[in-house]
């Protein structure tokens, strides 16, 4: 997969500012994703996701924003009214 355009939005399994989890030597993929709790005062879960930005398709990775303030806004859907 590498740096190919993200096919779908995926949490990276870590919080921003932390190295990705090391692949276990056993070769067995530890599938138990660390249950990340989102709470005020806690680190934001990192993610990599496809995005539309000013006429272009691009990839957004939250940890690329380290060092900046970020306002992450979820909303129910395009073409809704509020």
């Amino acid at each position, binding site marked *: 997969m590498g740096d190919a355009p993200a096919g779908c939005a995926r949490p990276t399994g870590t919080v921003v500012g932390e190295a990705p989890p090391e692949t276990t030597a056993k070769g067995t993929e530890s599938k138990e994703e660390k249950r990340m709790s989102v709470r005020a005062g806690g680190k934001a879960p990192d993610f990599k996701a496809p*995005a539309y930005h000013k006429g272009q398709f691009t990839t957004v990775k939250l940890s690329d924003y380290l060092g900046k303030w970020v306002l992450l806004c979820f909303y129910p859907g395009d073409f809704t009214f509020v």
Partner: protein
Amino acid sequence: MSAVADRYGEFKELGVEVIAVSVDSMFVHKVWDEEELSKMVDGGIPFPMVADGAGNLGRVYGVYDENAGVDIRGRFLIDPDGVIQAMEVLTPPVGRSVEETIRQVKAFQHVRATGGAEACPSGWQPGGATLKVGPDLVGKVWKVWKP
């Protein structure tokens, strides 16, 4: 989203990067921006609009509604260290107050600038009195701040 885009200049001045997320695809984001939002906000939406089709991000952030299949309104203010300083989650029919978001950004930036030595009391506005955190303040808040 247009409300946030409308105040984007202010977020930019405050050094805040905005990222919008919904379950719509990049294609739908594009058409919404071109067909509608660009008519509400000059130049269209200036920040990235993320496509969270499977709700993976919404689930991690606790805003994905499994029944409706959408990410409900949630906004997370993340500081330069990657720490969530503020979060607000609303069900769909009520919109957020961008004004309040900007106030919180300014308050958290003020606190950060003082290294945590000052706190912003309830309803604080930029330029308003802050509380100097320390032993001398204990039991004496009434002297310096009234609701």
